[in-house]
């Protein structure tokens, strides 16, 4: 029952620990040419070196920090905007609500990556922040649609009518009744989106639209290692496995959270 939660927590915790570690310690400097070109894995360089002699392990560790930053940033942004929009849409009058719902559906029809590419194209040059903004905005449409449906379901409950009759305003009802009721489901959805955000960031930087060097993200590492994969396959394997461990961990965590919610009979989604 709790197995998913544990596997997820360990994998995500490991990535978070590595990300935190890079703030204070790295095996080598990120741009330090510390070994021979494309040298195979050794004790000094467990994942080998790239074509300029830079340590792959160092770069993969920095990649963990960037993936966590973009994931957390996009999840916070998407969660906040999405929840606000969704609750507002649920409260809105019929016509406005329909228009919002239709707009969200059109936005969701476009994959996150495409919306993100447009946002990056709109801003002057790619950076860590454009990636967070782009992925967070794309994510917010998905969260908003979910929140709107959940809020409408809560609004139909008798205790909302009771709260209205006892003179509570809509603002207080939102804080006291709606948010606590929808939050567990929204958290699971945000967690799943977190995993997708990590993949989307990797795709963006693989396409050259993500974080610029020297803060190489996993996607950019993969893009550069692709041309030398026949001589240094670890350069492709290591960032890929790191990325999979993080996304897999997040998905397990989300599944575990959902199991926990289903077990708790008070909060049926």
């Amino acid at each position: 029952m709790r197995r998913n939660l544990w596997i997820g927590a360990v994998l995500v915790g490991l990535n978070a620990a590595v990300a935190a570690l890079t703030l204070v310690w790295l095996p080598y400097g990120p741009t330090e040419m510390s070994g021979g070109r494309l040298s195979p894995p050794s004790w000094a360089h467990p994942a080998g070196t790239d074509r300029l002699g830079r340590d792959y392990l160092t770069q993969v560790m920095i990649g963990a920090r960037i993936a966590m930053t973009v994931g957390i940033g996009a999840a916070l942004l998407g969660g906040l905007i999405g929840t606000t929009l969704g609750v507002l849409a649920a409260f809105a009058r019929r016509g406005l609500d329909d228009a919002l719902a239709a707009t969200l559906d059109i936005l969701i029809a476009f994959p996150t990556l495409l919306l993100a590419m447009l946002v990056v194209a709109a801003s002057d040059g790619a950076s860590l922040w454009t990636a967070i903004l782009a992925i967070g905005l794309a994510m917010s449409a998905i969260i908003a649609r979910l929140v709107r449906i959940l809020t409408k379901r809560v609004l139909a409950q008798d205790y909302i009518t009771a709260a209205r009759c006892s003179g509570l305003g809509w603002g207080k009802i939102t804080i006291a009744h709606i948010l606590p009721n929808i939050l567990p489901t929204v958290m699971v959805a945000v967690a799943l989106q977190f995993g997708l955000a990590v993949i989307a960031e990797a795709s963006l930087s693989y396409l050259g639209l993500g974080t610029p060097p020297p803060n190489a993200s996993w996607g950019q590492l993969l893009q550069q290692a692709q041309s030398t994969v026949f001589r240094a396959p670890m350069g492709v394997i290591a960032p890929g496995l790191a990325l999979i461990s993080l996304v897999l961990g997040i998905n397990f965590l989300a599944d575990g959270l959902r199991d926990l919610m289903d077990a708790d009979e008070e909060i049926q989604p």
Partner: protein
Amino acid sequence: MGRYLLRRTFVLALSLIAAGLVLFVLLRLLPGDPAAALLGVGADDAQIAAAREQVGSDQPIWVQLGRFLSDLARFDLGKSFVSNQPVLPEILARLTITLPLTLAAFTLALCLAVPLGIIAAARADRWYGALISTISQFGLAVPVFWIGILLVWLVAIEWRLLPASGFPIDGWGDPWAAIKALILPVVTIALVMSASLLRYVRSATLDVLGADYLRKARALGETQAQALIRHGIRNGAVPVISILGIELASTLLGAVVVERVFTLPGLGSMLLLGIQQRDYPSVQGVLLISTLLVLLIGFAADVIQRLIDPRLRDPGAGR
């Protein structure tokens, strides 16, 4: 059914116009003057003014909107800023790569996901059922380009079985060469896509397995396999088909990453190039055509759902 098709076509046309408007607004929101992008750095004011007149960005927004819509009605998507060639023929040429790529990958993914998903659900208590579910969980966490790079490394570089990248210059002139260039990209997309499809098939099958009509079929003497084939597939297919529509659409639009891995000159690479070069007509054209395709896919998914499920066709039936 006829009335439904008529109504659904009307909705399709409306959503196409709406999507066109959204795109128009989105692209006009982009900072940076298309005219400046047309000229590049070092242009003087007179040149910029002339370019604005040519592009039409000196006009008020509603005049631009009118021009945009009337061009659209004549299937005129404008000319590329970079090559000065009309955008539409370029898009159609690139679709001859992206469409076969997407459709073949989709078909292969279905052939993998449907049987495996049904086995994973029907044999959830056996080791191989659990194994299939675990592998699909992994598949959800793997970025598609990573699989692509690994396949290029193993199949193309180590074993030298297939070309690593590119597409024949004369396109489909030599069909076998074109097919060989597409095999690895197709397998790459299909592997990742089947992981998420499999999970939907599995949960749809689990729902069907718990249904009363299946228990009754078993009680009437059918084996589980017979019951699943005669009653299960049709029932389970209905929720899966709408997911299929969404998956097909996102594969079409997501082909940009895979096309980059294999340097295929498809629609996705045109979009990427357009974004890098700030070539507004190209970006706008690619997005419009792909939106049209996405809406058509949704249309097809809805119609197929109604063909399979009589309850959707006639609300009175089946109650």
